[in-house]
């Protein structure tokens, strides 16, 4: 089976090694604003509405200090992933109740050309299911280190 490539979906302008926000809502807004600043989404309010609704469906905190807020939105031009790290940890309402340190926000148009949204989401969950990988993501200092880690 083809291994889904992740690196091309990240962008340095959406790499946040030290999140400013200290709450879940604040982090969602901070990362959506990264997408808006990068020109991936035009209307941040619309996208924020969608990610909040997704959180109402069930927490996107997938245990072990990781959250993957995600969704398809008509207001997004491309399938992209923003990364944010919080050393302090964020109360996310995750399944294991632990604070979240690593946040990967995945946004996609309703139908991107290769229909990779669900495969990319699945690959991300798979990569982050390995304890040693999770640990390394907490230690990255630069976007180059981060992408090297994704390639390994």
């Amino acid at each position, binding site marked *: 089976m083809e291994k889904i490539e992740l690196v091309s979906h990240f962008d340095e302008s959406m790499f946040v090694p030290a999140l400013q926000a200290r709450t879940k809502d604040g982090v969602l807004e901070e990362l959506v604003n990264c997408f808006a600043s990068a020109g991936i989404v035009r209307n941040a309010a*619309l996208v924020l509405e969608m990610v909040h609704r997704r959180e109402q*469906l069930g927490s996107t905190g997938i245990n072990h200090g990781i959250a993957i807020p995600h969704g398809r939105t008509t*207001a997004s031009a491309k399938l992209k992933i923003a990364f944010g790290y919080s050393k302090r940890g964020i109360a996310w309402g995750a399944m294991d109740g632990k604070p979240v340190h690593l946040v990967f926000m995945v946004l996609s*148009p*309703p*139908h991107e050309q290769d229909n990779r949204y669900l495969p990319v*989401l699945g690959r991300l969950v798979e990569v982050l299911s390995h304890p040693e990988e999770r640990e390394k993501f907490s230690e990255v200092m630069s976007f180059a280190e981060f992408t090297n880690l994704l390639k390994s």
Partner: protein
Amino acid sequence: MAEKLSTQIEFLVALQDLDIMQREIEEVKQLGFEVNAEGAATLTRAREELVQKIRQPLLRNYERLRSRYKRAIVPAKEATCLGCFMRVPTSVPTHGRADTEVYTCENCGRILYWLA
């Protein structure tokens, strides 16, 4: 949730995003994400509230288009409808838009949303 959306096209996009989310619940669950029954009911209520804000003719058009195509609203890029890939008329403004008016593609009828 604080209401930040105000225009008809914004409500329509939010509605389509919600409909897509509801359609993909099972796939997302299979990936290991938590989806609870209470949350699903919350989305249904959110949809009911959202449709109240959309003018009836527009809503009817959205529902009609949704039953015909997978997406009722599609992006318009470089004056092209990304649903049927036909060019939109030059009379339609394509840049610096404020989402205050709703335009449809003259060819396929889909509602257009400008990403730039």
